[in-house]
């Protein structure tokens, strides 16, 4: 009969070690053990040296260890905080504020870089020569300039804006001056919970419609206008709630009081320049990813779709985009992760995100480098893992199902 052995088994059998080995060190199995024990010994020695050196050095410099410093009062102010903060608050509060600021700038950056990336990535395929060139110029210019230079550049630009009295005024609602960008804030009054509830209800309803439409199409082949009905539900339900409850909202407009603006939402120039620079820089990479994704779909797919009689608009949404997303999503994942890591450049302009405020200011005062760096890095790893988790979940849905 035919031999059913695999090549690997045959290889193992013909090796001298298994056919009455002369020396044990010629056996790959023992060799692997020997190599790995060398590696282990090296690593143990390496870490032992590092740890003992660190402990010695810390003892010599009088640096304490442990996490007890987190409870003590920080004694310095932070430029911007999403939580109420006083200088007497603890280092742990500083840590939390840093994390929130990092998440804020990452979220803004991710949203705007995705928008920019998709706009310019699609623009590459425009029939208009000028649009095409602008897309190429955008990608090639901003991708090839260090992001930290871009941040510092925008910071300089925002710092040369006019003073508060001569603010750039857009419709008496939005003001831009050297101290930042002032936006009107939507304030909910009593009864606004009803409207929020309606929005949540509308979102749930959209999911239900989508599921039901899918089921119906599977069963009967009939299509249901999911997009239009979803938009209708999303607009009409909250609108109805708004009217029923008597519009329980008003805008808080920023207004010039004394030397500066009060009220509304204030975006400090540090946050603005960081968000602008990160969005533009990462957007260039995303545009490149989108371009690569669309180009990765073979021409034959479009032709095949036409030949089965799909409309041009359906070809894009049903054939090209789902296949392009398979290439784009993993790249988006890594771009988002590098965006989160790049928020650390805030330290060059002083925006108080985690790295600047905790690994910078707090570390300067406490001196416990090991603990503080450990905590900081743990947060970046956690944020990146979260992004990775979400994107992988998204990727699973777009992935090609193979055997």
């Amino acid at each position, binding site marked *: 009969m035919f031999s059913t052995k695999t090549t690997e088994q045959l290889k193992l059998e013909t090796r001298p070690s298994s056919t009455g080995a002369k020396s044990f060190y010629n056996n790959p199995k023992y060799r692997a053990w020997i190599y790995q024990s060398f590696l282990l010994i090296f690593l143990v020695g390496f870490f032992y040296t590092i740890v003992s050196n660190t402990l010695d050095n810390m003892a010599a410099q009088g640096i304490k260890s442990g996490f007890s410093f987190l409870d003590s009062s920080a004694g310095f102010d932070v430029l911007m905080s999403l939580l109420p903060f006083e200088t007497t608050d603890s280092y742990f509060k500083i840590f939390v504020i840093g994390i929130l600021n990092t998440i804020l700038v990452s979220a803004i950056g991710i949203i705007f870089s995705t928008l920019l990336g998709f706009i310019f990535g699609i623009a590459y395929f425009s029939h208009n020569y000028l649009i095409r060139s602008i897309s190429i110029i955008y990608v090639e210019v901003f991708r090839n300039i260090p992001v930290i230079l871009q941040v510092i550049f925008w910071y300089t630009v925002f710092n040369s804006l006019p003073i508060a009295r001569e603010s750039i005024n857009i419709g008496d609602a939005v003001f831009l001056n050297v101290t930042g960008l002032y936006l009107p804030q939507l304030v909910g009054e009593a009864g606004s919970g009803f409207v929020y509830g309606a929005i949540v209800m509308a979102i749930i309803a959209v999911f239900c419609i989508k599921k039901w439409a899918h089921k119906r199409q599977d069963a009967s082949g009939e299509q249901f206008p999911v997009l239009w009905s979803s938009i209708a539900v999303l607009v009409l339900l909250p609108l109805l709630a708004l009217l029923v409850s008597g519009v329980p909202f008003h805008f808080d407009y920023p207004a010039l009081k004394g030397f500066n603006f009060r009220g509304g939402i204030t975006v400090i120039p540090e946050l603005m320049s960081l968000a602008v620079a990160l969005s533009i820089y990462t957007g260039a990479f995303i545009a490149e990813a989108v371009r690569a994704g669309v180009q990765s779909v*073979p021409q034959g797919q479009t032709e095949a779709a036409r030949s089965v009689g799909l409309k041009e608009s359906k070809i894009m949404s049903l054939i090209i985009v789902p296949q392009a997303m398979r290439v784009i999503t993993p790249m988006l994942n890594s771009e988002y992760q590098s965006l989160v890591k790049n928020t650390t450049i805030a330290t060059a302009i002083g925006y108080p995100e985690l790295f600047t405020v905790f690994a910078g200011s707090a570390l300067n005062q406490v001196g416990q480098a090991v603990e503080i760096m450990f905590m900081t890095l743990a947060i970046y790893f956690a944020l990146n893992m979260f992004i990775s988790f979400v994107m992988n979940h998204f990727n699973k849905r777009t992935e090609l199902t193979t055997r």
Partner: protein
Amino acid sequence: MQAKEFKPLPAQPAPESTIGPIAWMRENLFSSVFNIAVTVIIASALVSIIPGVLDWLIFSANWSGTTQADCVKDGACWIFIKAWSQQIFYGSYPDGEIWRVNLSLMLLAGVIALSFILPARLRNKVAVPAYLILPFVCLLILNGSHLGLTPVSTDLWGGFSLNVLIAAASIIIAFPFGFLWALGRQSDMPFARSVSVTCIEFFRGTPILALFFMGSVMLPLFFPADISVDKLLRVWIILVLFMSAYMAEVFRSGFAAIPKGQYEAADSIGLGYWQKTLLIIFPQVIKVSMPNILATFVMVFKNTVFLLVIAVPEMLQVIMTALSNSNWLGGHAIEGYLFVGFIFWICCFSMSLLATSIEKKLDTSHKN
């Protein structure tokens, strides 16, 4: 009966309406109402912006002079760049010793040229050792104390040459490390594999700025108290480890691109593991990973600017120091940043063009 000889008619010229600049414009600028509107809007925006920008950059810019007082015209003050050019390119390296920096840069260019010129059979034997020795030779030349030259402290190294040299030195040393980690990652030995994966994921997951920061605040704690390691050397170690992780991933995708038959063929002619890896697999991995290696180099080159955060006088740091100089307080920040951006853009863009052309040369698929 003799068959009539087939004589093709001469080719007809393409229809007038499909060739020439007019047809191109009709196709690419004015193909529909929407396109006409877009073209008009963009063109008018460009017409209104470009003359002003060009005027500021070139025509009314100040080109000649030596001090800030010479910047009398409205445009950019390029005298600022001119006056600081030596610091921008060489940092505070002593005047008489600048030839050493130039020599190092030329050695780098020479080794790169060597690896392209040499015949294939010598390339791996000569170019690889030359690359690996190069960073240490440059270190000896720039430091000088072991060669009988005037010793120059690393605090004085700086400027654009530092960006170039430290990026090159890091990626060169990251090559063997990255290769080793990539081999470890796909090895059969479970412990070696997990160590490699941990190294790669740690250095890829950490922001480079945090790594630089650790290099300046934590690394000194790791060494015995009586050894003080130079700041630039610590930065170099950090950059090498960081790059190794990225190179390992580049090599991993390179390994994945090598057909399994290559391993089996090497096995069948009786090559050992290292012979197989270095003689058969490595050259092919290098070839297919070349575009990614260049992209990684562009990344590390851009990342060298991050060094300004820990006060290493690289190019941008020099510009910022110059901006706060009391003789130049006229607000030349935009000129300075544009200049740094322009230099980096030229370098990175040409490298990415090179990467694209190599990629095209390697791409033999017949898609589309």
